[in-house]
């Protein structure tokens, strides 16, 4: 596989749930190694469905799904995909089902055939990396929302995937965990696709933002850093916003509109 083989390549994919309208129509989408793509689109435009199609959780009505250069059709084709692409679910309660944090993070590696010792070591390493040491024996459902999100991310990273699909990871997060995510995501040596409703968050974590309309993914507006003048109560006090420069230095000089 050369680095020019797309990780994900969807061609002419059409999907709708039985009895419902078509959600995705003749959709094309490609993710190349090294890309970090943000997707921002209204609710119901099929973003989550797109992820589920890539993971083989639902099957397209027509069109072609190729992952790592291989065209996938049946359930067993997708087993490999699930090892190499990690999906972070919208609701961490869906993702964390083991009683304790360590078991949940080790669940993936164990399924991949690691021994208990190896899986435990990978899980601890992943938790350490995310700053979650000391969480091993915590009970998953007693974690706070932000902790659940980070542990969910740990469960996905513990699979040592080549790419990530992140479904609204910033949703309902406290400011601190949000800032942690903005720090963590770009530092990962991984390609990813990230769904979010917040432009702020996307600019800090993605290289390009796509939108979805009429069941299609629309390319590709280049980013330009720009500033807003805005007013709000307590504006005179020193305070921070999640600005592009703070979290993720722009890849090119700021645009003219500044």
């Amino acid at each position: 596989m050369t680095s020019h083989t797309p990780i994900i390549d969807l061609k002419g994919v059409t999907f709708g749930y039985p009895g419902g309208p078509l959600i995705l129509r003749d959709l094309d989408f490609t993710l190349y190694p090294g890309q970090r793509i943000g997707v921002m689109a209204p609710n119901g435009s099929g973003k989550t469905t797109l992820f589920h199609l890539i993971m083989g959780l639902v099957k397209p009505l027509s069109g072609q799904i190729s992952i790592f250069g291989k065209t996938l059709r049946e359930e067993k084709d997708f087993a490999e995909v699930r090892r190499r692409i990690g999906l972070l679910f919208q609701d961490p309660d869906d993702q964390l089902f083991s009683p304790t944090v360590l078991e949940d993070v080790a669940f993936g590696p164990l399924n991949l055939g690691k021994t208990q010792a190896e899986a435990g070591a990978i899980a601890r390493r992943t938790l350490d990396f995310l700053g979650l040491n000391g969480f091993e024996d915590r009970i998953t459902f007693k974690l706070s929302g932000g902790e659940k999100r980070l542990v969910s991310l740990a469960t996905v990273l513990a699979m040592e995937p080549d790419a990530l699909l992140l479904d609204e990871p910033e949703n309902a997060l406290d400011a601190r965990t949000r800032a942690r995510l903005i720090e963590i995501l770009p530092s990962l040596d991984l390609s990813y696709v990230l769904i979010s409703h917040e432009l702020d968050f996307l600019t800090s974590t993605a290289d390009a933002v796509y939108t979805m309309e009429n069941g299609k993914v629309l390319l590709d507006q280049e980013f330009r850093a720009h500033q807003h003048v805005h007013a709000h109560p307590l504006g005179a006090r020193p305070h921070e916003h999640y600005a592009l420069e703070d979290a993720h230095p722009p890849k090119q000089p700021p645009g003219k509109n500044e």
Partner: protein
Amino acid sequence: MLREPFAVGDSPLHRLDPRIRLVAAAGFSCVVAVCREFPALLAALILSMALVALARLRTGEVLRRLVVVNGLVAFIWAVIPFTFPGEALFRLGPFGAARDGVLLAAQITLKSNAIVLVFMALVATMSLATAGHALHQLRVPDKIVHLFLMTYRYIFVLEQEYHRLVRAACIRGFQPGTNLHTYRTYAYLVGMLFVRAVERAERVRWAMLCRGFKRKFYCLQEFKAGPGSAIFFSLMVAALVGVIALEFRVVEW
């Protein structure tokens, strides 16, 4: 929020091997459930109280649980003595309480309190997650253990979802009463809970598939039975033999 107030603690019982505790509690329950003689039942009750004391559980919490159990036992007292045939021990108006019925109700009272106390001392003193893994190591079938652990995990989510629905009803002025509107609302609420549970189950299954689930669970927890556990187990066996001896009148009270 559902809680497990007894699960954390530092008593001698908390430190015992969970597997030994589960086996001891199960053995105790079986023996007590089939005993009929009062000396044996009283000895069992005293043993269970001693274990609760050893586990250093908060008295208030223990009593609160006993009230629930004995609320059910009260129904037995209200019904069994008065429906049993035989000579009346005492009369309440037109109803006579049969001597055999009173004895049976008293047996049930002693048995249920003794068993509940032992479970508080031995089983409630570990988290349900630990209990699940201990059951797994005791070779309880995988499916039962997984059902148990997944129920434990998602009962909290369902509880939250239930409260969310109740709040949604309350903020629109819903007040439960004895009328069709209330029954219908609760029926919708329960129905909605089932629908959400099914959807949740599907998403959880997907999350498991995405992480390479192959219909097999692995357990990372390892248990070690130290000398303390061995001594405790021998003492429990001896105590139960004592109870059985009292039951068969091998020894007298």
